Each structure stands twice: as structure tokens, then as C-alpha cells.
């Protein structure tokens, strides 16, 4: 493990240097919560947060994203032709992403970057981005990352992991991208890796010990899909659901979108917007038939996708990193931990 020491007085200086080679994004406090925003020169990320209210998924997969533009004006030579719009895929760095949110990109990648299909917008955005994580020294009561294939100091999906050890920062170099970023920032104080590793390990263990909520996922894989699908508990789970899109929009691992054309007068754009399996329109067929016309069916779909279909399809755990946003902000307190346990223990 190669660890770099970053003096706190050098932090802002390094960030300023980064502006020469990257667009910077970081957590900023707005109103009463933190969200990721592009940082202007001189603007500092604010690390006095547990996690951002919205996940940073929009940095790679924006809620609304224009893909093409077109003209319907037949006087134009290229009317009715979809033209790709110019996009900014210059190097970017996301500073201060929590390990759970960085791991989430890897879960989403399994959908956007496969052997058969490659989503050019997602892949180019993702590849242009360097992820600088900020280890979670004090996880929240709703965090269950350690049983969701992740953890407060998890490194998967990160290029660099910064650990705040009070007197200074320690940076764990994970990838070449991370190394390049350190060079651009001028953070080059090598630390005594042995001592640093021990220090990090101690803080990591303290952080993990603070996590008090867990899910059991060990039996999801061996459950029979149709038995879970037909289980009687879905009516109970779904009762309180109001079928809003809060859980899906806040979730770092929900990736669904819808494609729409919008035009004003003769000019228009083809765009994609986040969509949600909680909405009836999500599955409305052209014929008018809706295979998920009932609330219970939609609630079931969300949990079956995250906790069963994904588990079976990718054989790599649940489609959840345990960030706890859906638990904290569901208007009616539907708790994925509770549902996961019901599913995992069903029929035992």
C-alpha cells in the first residue's frame, strides 16, 4: 500500500493546482444539506458532512441529459437528422466521494458497460472521471455498508482514498489515475507506509465498529425466484408505499432512464431522463396494457431487482451499497434493511 501524506495547509493549494488539469466536483453545503457541485477556482469542498443528500450518480448519469439535436425545418439541408451534440469529456475529479457511492458506480457499470452493450455517454463520463474518496470516519445509523459488500474505507471504484487523521490527511493510492492526480496537485510527501497503514487500520476498525445496522443476504441467491415473487409479504411491504420516486432517485445504484424527444417550434432535442420503476408509466405498453399496473407489483419489482434478479444475474452480491439514503428519506419509512431480511429469511 502506497500512502501519501497531505498537510492540511497544502490541501487548498493542491486543489487550486488541480484546476489546471481537471474540472473539480465536490460536496458543498446548500440550504441545509450537502450535494455535489462543480467547484469554481477558490471554492473548497466542505467535508463537514456524513454524506450528500443526493447520490453523486448524476455526475456521470445526469437526471436529464441531451444526446441529440434535430431540426424539423425542411428548408434546412439536414432536417430530420439526429445530430450528436458536443459534450465535455475533459478530465474531471470528484473529490470527497464516500466509498459506498464510488462502489455504486461499479455496480451500475455492470449495466452500462457490457460485452454486448456499451452506453457511450456513461462510459465516456465515467472514464473521464478520477474518484477521490473520503473515508467515512463516522458512519451514520442508517449505514449498513459493511454487510452490503462495501465499507467505510472500501477502495473498489476509487482512484485515491483520503483518510482524515486529524493532524493531516493520508492518501492511499489505488490506481494510476490517482497517482496522476497527486502529481497534478503537487501532493508528493511520501509517508512511512508501515506506520500510516497501521494508523489507517486503527481508524478503519473504529469506523467499522460504529456501524450498528446490518442486512443478511446470504440466502437470497438460493431462494427460488418465483416463490419470492409470489410471497404473501409483498402486500404488507407495499401497503405504506406512496409510489413516489424518492428511493430510486436518491439511490446511487438505480440506473433506469427514459428517452424523450422535446421540440419547440422547428428545433428539438432527444434526451434521456431518469425514470423510476415506482411510476406506472415506466411499464406502460403502447397497447395500453400495463404489466405493473398495481402499486404492489412496482414495490416488488424494486426490491426483487436489487435483492434477487441482480444477485442471480451478476453473481456478485446485491444491487445496493448500504448508503442508507432511501431509509433516511423515504416519506413513509419503508426500510430496505427490513425488506432484505424478510426476503432472505422467507420460507425458513
Amino acid at each position, binding site marked *: 500500500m502506497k500512502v501519501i501524506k497531505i498537510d492540511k495547509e497544502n490541501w487548498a493549494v493542491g486543489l487550486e493546482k488541480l484546476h489546471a488539469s481537471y474540472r473539480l466536483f465536490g460536496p458543498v453545503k*446548500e*440550504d*441545509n*444539506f450537502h450535494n455535489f457541485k462543480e467547484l469554481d477556482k477558490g471554492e473548497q469542498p466542505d467535508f*463537514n458532512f*456524513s454524506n450528500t*443528500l*443526493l447520490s453523486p450518480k448524476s455526475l456521470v448519469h445526469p*437526471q*436529464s441529459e441531451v444526446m441529440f439535436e434535430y431540426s424539423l425545418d425542411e428548408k434546412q439541408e439536414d432536417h430530420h437528422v439526429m445530430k450528436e451534440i458536443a459534450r465535455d469529456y475533459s478530465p474531471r475529479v470528484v473529490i470527497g466521494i464516500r466509498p459506498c457511492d464510488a462502489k455504486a458506480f461499479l455496480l451500475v457499470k455492470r449495466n452500462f458497460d457490457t460485452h454486448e452493450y456499451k452506453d457511450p455517454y456513461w462510459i465516456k463520463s465515467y472514464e473521464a472521471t478520477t474518484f477521490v474518496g473520503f473515508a467515512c470516519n*463516522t458512519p*451514520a*445509523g*442508517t449505514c449498513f455498508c459493511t454487510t452490503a459488500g462495501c465499507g467505510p474505507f472500501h477502495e473498489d471504484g476509487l482512484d485515491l482514498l483520503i483518510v482524515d487523521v486529524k493532524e493531516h490527511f493520508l492518501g492511499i493510492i489505488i490506481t494510476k489515475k490517482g497517482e496522476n492526480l497527486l502529481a497534478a496537485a503537487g501532493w508528493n510527501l511520501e509517508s512511512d507506509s508501515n506506520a500510516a497503514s497501521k494508523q489507517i487500520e486503527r481508524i478503519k476498525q473504529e469506523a467499522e465498529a460504529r456501524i450498528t445496522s446490518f442486512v443478511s443476504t446470504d440466502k437470497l441467491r438460493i431462494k427460488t425466484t418465483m416463490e419470492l415473487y409470489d410471497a404473501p409479504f409483498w402486500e404488507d411491504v407495499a*401497503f*405504506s408505499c*406512496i*409510489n*413516489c*420516486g*424518492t428511493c430510486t*432517485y*436518491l439511490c446511487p445504484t438505480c440506473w433506469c432512464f*427514459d428517452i*424523450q424527444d*422535446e421540440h419547440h417550434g422547428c428545433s428539438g432535442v432527444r*434526451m434521456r*431522463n431518469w*425514470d*423510476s420503476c415506482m*411510476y*406506472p*408509466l415506466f411499464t*406502460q405498453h403502447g397497447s395500453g396494457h400495463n404489466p405493473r399496473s398495481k402499486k404492489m407489483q412496482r414495490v416488488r419489482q424494486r426490491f426483487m431487482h436489487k435483492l434477487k434478479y441482480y444477485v442471480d444475474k451478476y453473481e456478485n452480491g446485491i444491487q445496493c451499497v448500504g448508503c442508507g439514503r432511501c*431509509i*433516511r*428519506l423515504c*416519506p*413513509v*419509512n*419503508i*426500510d430496505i*434493511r*427490513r425488506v432484505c431480511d424478510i426476503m432472505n429469511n422467507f420460507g425458513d
Partner: protein
Amino acid sequence: MLGYIDKIKETSNRLLKESKVDMVMCFRKGTVPMINEPYFAKTPDDVDHFVWDSNCGINLANYLADREEKIGIVAKGCDSRNIVTHIIENKIKREQLYIIGVPCRGMIDKHTISDMFEGEIKEVTEEGSKITVKGDGFKETLDKKDVLQGNCTTCVNRNPVIYDELVADLVEEQKDLDRYADVHKIESMSPGEKWKYFDDLLSNCIRCYACRNACPLCYCPTCFVDEHRPQWVGKSIDPVDTRTFHFLRAYHCAGRCTDCGACERACPMGINVRMFTRKLEKDCMELFGWEAGLTLEERPPLDTYRPEDPDDFIK
């Protein structure tokens, strides 16, 4: 209000045992502070999970529309007014319901309380008019009246307006309130200031529709924003579309909104969604002397015509 739960459970058990109802709707304790989960009991065992405290702000009338069972429902003042509205609008029949009335002393506002503390709130408990908030390195006792949901501070219908049984004596209604101070403030703004106020209000909206879906009035089989043949409203987060959604939704609630606060409470972004409906509520009061959901005997002003209806707006 903690004292209500024994009576709620006793009544619910009786109704279920005597098969007077197929289910009773109430709340169970939430898994995070300051929110309880709407929960239905079909057996006396389920009733054991019921709770009632100052975190039962979600309007349970929202769960009644088009149900066919016989239902027991625990209803505070605003819930009961939305039950009346549902009955008037033929979303449920009075005879399907057994209304367990709860005289309410107000619900606490999780946004207000969360904003008061830097760290994570781990536990919130209550005793009488005191709310105790505990978190990492802090413990503070607050007066409940200082942390009420916005709508509860101006509520004049804490007692249920319709019920089959009450769980306790009626409480005293709040008097001498300036109920529309917030609206007056906006009314006194210039058009430009108003525009900016509402634009700022919506700047964080993510179009998740939690406000709409938590609202008992929003039961349309297909909401206008979900119409797609033709599509009326864009799906992106273009401010024009976001505004269109909120403005039209508010107008659909004119003369029907009980200011229960469910929309504001549900919003994950902490937007005070009520600011769109408050003016309409005030106008209905001033123009028609009407407050929604108080009586089964009268049609709401916007679904009847009376020659004396105000028409000054026709120039």
C-alpha cells in the same frame, strides 16, 4: 399524545375481534427517528405494533381511496377532514369506515429539528409538551410548540370533525392565530419578487412526486404529468416543466386542500410545498367562506355554481 395508544389498541382489537372491520389503519414505530410508518392491522397480533406519538404526520386518508374493505382508521383533525373530502368525492363510502378520532396536539417537524443540530440525531423522545433529542455528543430538550410542523402551528381543527369514537377528550383548539402570515408576506411582494420566491422554492425539486403521492387529494387514475398521448408536460428537470407540475397540482387542490402538511413532510429535499396551496386555501376562505373537509352536507365551492359566487375577476 402518548397516552392515546392504549385506547387506540383497545378499540382496534375490539373492532377486529368483532369483525366490524377488515383492517385498522394506524402507524408502527419507524426505523429512524421522527418518522413512523403507516401500517395496517388485520389481526389483534398486528395491533401490538401500533404506535401513536408526534411522528404520525403522514395523512392516513391517502390510503383509503377506492378501497373496498371495511376499514377502521385512526384519524387526527386533518386526516378526518380528508376523509370527509374523500366521502364527498366518492372515493370511499362513509359506511365502510369506522373512524377512531384522535384529538391532536400537533406533529413535530423533522426538517426543523434536523436543522437545529450539526451531528446525526439518534433518538427523539417525547413527554407531554417536551421533545428530547439525542445524538452524538448532544442531548437537548425542546418545547414541542417550537418544533411543530408548519401547518400544525396554524391549525384550528385539531379535533376530528367526523368520528365514530374518540380516544380521548377533545383538545382545546388554537385561537387568535395569524393563520396566513406567510401568505400575506408573499402577497405584499412585487411580481418580480414573487416569481423569484417561487423559483427559489423549486430550485431543489427533483420531480420525484413525493408531494403529489403523499397527498390524499392526488388520486387521479392518471396524473396530468403522466399523460403521454399526447404528453402535456416535459419529463426533464427544466424549470418550466417543474413549475408547470407544481402550479397545476396546486390548482387541482383549490377548495379541497386541508393544509395537512403531508406534501411538505414527504419532500426529500425539504421544499415547503404548502406555499403553493396556502394562497388558494386563503382565497377559498375569503371568497367563499369555505374550509375544506368540515362538513358532509355541503358541496365544495368549486364544484357548484351559485349566482352569488364572486366574479370580480371577470373584467
